[in-house]
């Protein structure tokens, strides 16, 4: 083996790859950011779902002619920790399966049901045999199934004198074979159909976009007098048609496979396929194919080669896949915001169609929003095909590792320009902002959360001052810009500070109400946050709490988000878009799906304050007041005071907060205009 040759080839290949910023981003940054994000999202959602399920009480009706036995059983089932409540509704004293089917009750517990022999009853009465108990439930309804499990568990452990079980529990599901078939399919088919429809769009989208570019036919096509929107629409319809075909084939094949598989496993048909409902799920395949076709064609159109398109589309595929997976794994209801989350909404609608539980309004909303998202992606793709960038290759030449590192955080500079010469500071860019967020997120996920779990206050100090602020300092050094310049750390007019004070003192009320009303978090999540602010059994001083949880994030998170990231995004986007993007990144970094919406809104607000006032100091003030007020209230045990307020008092306080907030924002805006003049 000629080692110099091997080494030369190795170095050349590595150098060439490391100079391709897009490949690098997807190869390294995406897995490091996307996978933690996905796992975080899934863990949060599943934990929240589990907490909600566990907190739910199973309502059962007890049908027992013997008053003594009835009293014993009621006490057993109602025991704390079982999660069961025996209904006191007298109209359900003789409940039947019909009441379960009509959702009046989760399950019916029948003691010594009709078919029990007199001998068995007599043996049970003498204590020589367990008392027969039958649970009537619907295995295709998760709530009913949970009630069955809970009752079985509650009665199975009762082992008094004779060392045999006191109750012989049997289950009787009301579900028909067809209903069971629909239920089984509803668990797997929606997810498979959505994922396979997505996969069906994957390679055709690459072939007709990046493939066309690579084969040299793109220039030929673009020199024809065809409108770009028409061009992209034709391409998207072609991809969607192939994707549609994949989806339909999957529905048919999966349905037959499940039916046949169950028959083979049991030796007899144990379920039947509800073919009309299976056919109804086809309803989602058309908009799904259109959405995924449009998105993938739009992404594929950005790639310069087949390989690059694959690299770009894989994370997109994963990102589209995750919401569907979450929806498929947990028993969510198709309501509220879930109707608008692409992937999740389709999966849930397919499930409801399969179960025969779909309603018209959610169905229309899901289908319309999916087609709407697809149309946006199509318009984006058409715009991209009208762009000259499609015919250009823009990556600048790089010569060394240090130049490459600078290239990662800087915009491409023309050879021979002062930037390459290394004398001039590198201005911020959106690419730098996103890269910086990626690095911060990776550090936060893999190191800072671990540090904070180890010990909250020291971990927080290290991750905020050393991590976030340190990262901004390194970024400033790499860009050869003063830290104060990167942070936009300028003295603001006093009126801007006054406005910021008003916003900071009122914002937490509005955001608190919003969080409770839009996505109310599970009780456990709220408790965890309370324990974080004011840990039970720990004597942390108020000053330390305020410094660690209010001042520190106000300085360090503002430096990162409203300093480096916002300024970079602002170079490329308008004020509203920059604020929105910074807010979203800020929301993501807090790693809590339940607080995502309020944190994102706070991030947008802070970004607007920083941009409008022309300084980061007012946004730091808003941040410190927002966190500080909550910590002080928590310290004095007043954070739950709002729960006991009357509706009128809540509306009054909310109204006052809105007035304060608007006054504060108007003051900041006026101060900003005066500074600009």
């Amino acid at each position: 083996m000629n080692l110099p040759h091997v080494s030369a080839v190795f170095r050349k290949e590595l150098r060439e790859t490391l100079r391709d910023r897009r490949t690098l981003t997807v190869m390294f940054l995406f897995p490091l950011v996307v996978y933690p994000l996905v796992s975080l999202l899934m863990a949060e959602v599943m934990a929240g779902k589990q907490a909600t399920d566990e907190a739910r009480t199973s309502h059962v009706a007890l049908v027992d002619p013997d008053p003594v036995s009835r009293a014993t059983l009621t006490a057993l089932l109602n025991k704390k920790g079982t999660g069961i409540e025996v209904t006191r509704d007298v109209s359900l004293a003789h409940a039947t399966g019909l009441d379960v089917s009509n959702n009046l009750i989760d399950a019916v517990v029948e003691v010594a049901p009709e078919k029990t022999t007199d001998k068995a009853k007599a043996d049970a009465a003498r204590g020589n045999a367990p008392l027969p108990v039958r649970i009537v439930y619907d295995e295709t309804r998760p709530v009913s199934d949970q009630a069955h499990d809970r009752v079985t568990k509650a009665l199975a452990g009762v082992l008094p004198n004779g060392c045999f079980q006191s109750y012989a529990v049997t289950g009787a599901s009301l579900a028909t074979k067809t209903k069971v078939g629909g239920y089984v399919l509803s668990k797997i088919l929606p997810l498979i159909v959505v994922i396979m429809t997505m996969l069906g769009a994957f390679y055709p989208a690459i072939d007709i976009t990046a493939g066309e570019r690579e084969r040299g036919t793109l220039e030929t096509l673009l020199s024809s007098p065809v409108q770009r929107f028409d061009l992209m629409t034709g391409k998207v319809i072609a991809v969607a048609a192939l994707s549609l075909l994949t989806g339909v084939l999957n529905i048919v094949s999966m349905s037959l496979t499940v039916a046949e598989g169950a028959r083979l496993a049991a030796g007899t048909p144990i379920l039947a396929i509800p073919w009309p409902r299976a056919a109804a799920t086809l309803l989602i395949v058309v908009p799904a194919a259109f959405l995924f076709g449009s998105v993938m064609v739009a992404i594929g159109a950005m790639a310069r080669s087949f390989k690059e398109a694959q690299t770009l589309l894989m994370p997109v595929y994963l990102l589209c896949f995750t919401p569907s997976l979450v929806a498929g794994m947990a028993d969510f209801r198709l309501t509220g915001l879930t109707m608008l989350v692409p992937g999740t909404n389709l999966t849930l609608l397919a499930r409801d169609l399969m179960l025969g539980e779909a309603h018209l309004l959610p169905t229309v909303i899901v289908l319309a929003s999916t087609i709407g998202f697809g149309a946006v992606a199509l318009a984006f793709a058409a715009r991209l095909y009208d762009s000259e960038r499609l015919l250009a290759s823009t990556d600048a030449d790089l010569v060394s590792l240090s130049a490459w590192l600078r290239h990662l955080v800087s915009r491409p500079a023309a050879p021979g320009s002062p930037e390459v010469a290394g004398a001039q500071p590198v201005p911020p860019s959106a690419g730098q902002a996103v890269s910086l967020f990626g690095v911060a997120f990776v550090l936060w996920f893999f190191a800072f959360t671990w540090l904070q779990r180890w010990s909250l206050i020291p971990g927080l100090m290290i991750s905020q001052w050393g991590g976030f602020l340190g990262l901004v300092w390194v970024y400033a050094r790499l860009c050869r810009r003063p830290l104060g310049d990167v942070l936009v750390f300028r003295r603001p007019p006093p009126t801007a500070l006054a406005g910021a004070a008003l916003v900071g003192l009122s914002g937490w009320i509005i955001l608190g109400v919003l969080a409770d009303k839009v996505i109310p978090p599970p009780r456990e999540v709220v408790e965890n946050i309370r324990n974080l602010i004011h840990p039970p059994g720990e004597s942390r001083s108020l000053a330390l709490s305020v410094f660690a949880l209010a001042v520190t994030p106000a300085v360090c998170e503002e430096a990162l988000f409203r300093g480096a990231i916002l300024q970079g995004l602002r170079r490329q986007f308008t004020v509203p878009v920059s604020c929105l993007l910074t807010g979203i990144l800020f929301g993501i970094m807090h790693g809590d799906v339940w607080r995502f919406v309020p944190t994102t809104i706070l991030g947008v607000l802070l970004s607007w304050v920083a941009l409008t006032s022309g300084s980061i100091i007012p946004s730091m003030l808003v941040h410190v007041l927002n966190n500080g007020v909550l910590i002080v209230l928590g310290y004095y045990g007043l954070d739950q005071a709002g729960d006991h307020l009357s509706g009128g008092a809540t509306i009054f306080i909310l109204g006052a907060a809105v007035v304060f907030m608007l006054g504060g924002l108007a003051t900041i805006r006026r101060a900003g205009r005066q500074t600009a003049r």
Partner: protein
Amino acid sequence: MSDPSAVTVERLKKRFGQRTAVDGLSFSVAPGEIYGLLGPNGAGKTTTLRILAGLLRPTEGVARIDGVDVGLDPRQAQRHLGFLTGTTGLYGRLTAREVLAYFGTLQDMPRPRIAARIDQLTAALDLRAILDRRCEALSSGQKQRISVARAVIHDPPVLILDEPTVGLDVLASRFLREYIGAERARGKAVIFSTHYLAEAELLCDRVGLLYQGALLAEGRPRDLRAQAGDATSLEEAFLRLVTDLVAA
């Protein structure tokens, strides 16, 4: 009085960021004329031709194809021109006939006219043996003949050919030059870009020598040779003119 030129370029500029690719270029091409746009790599030939083909927008100036302003209405201008480059690709999994029919449809031609035009081009470009074969199975010369047919399927009055003979053997190059000559005879205006100056000397009625985005000289090949002090070839003339420019 209307402009009799088939192609008019006036003070055309194109900048990519800080870099100026075309810098105030002006020229015109009459019907029945072959105009050679010559120059070294990076002179701005391809950028100029891409602007004329409606693929790039000019930063400044005007380019008209058959009276249509390319910057204002690129799609309309594209109906009046056929664009061909040396690297133009074909859809490998389609047959030659399918490719021609596809581009004919994109030019809004009715089916009978497409069929008739394919018959005409089959005769003119000797396509009979390859018309129903998949493009991926064709040789370079055969592919380029199909590409020419694709570019002229709608019988446009203006042809823009960017280094169309790159990679072709002598016979194929000659065949292509003869076809371009025949199109001139049919009254077509042809813009022909190449850095094979000898080829341009054989074919072009007039040439424009492009250097660093601007027109260095323009005229009939023999006039340019005379202008450069009776240079023996167009290549020699070009070198002398560039040397004089750099020295100045």
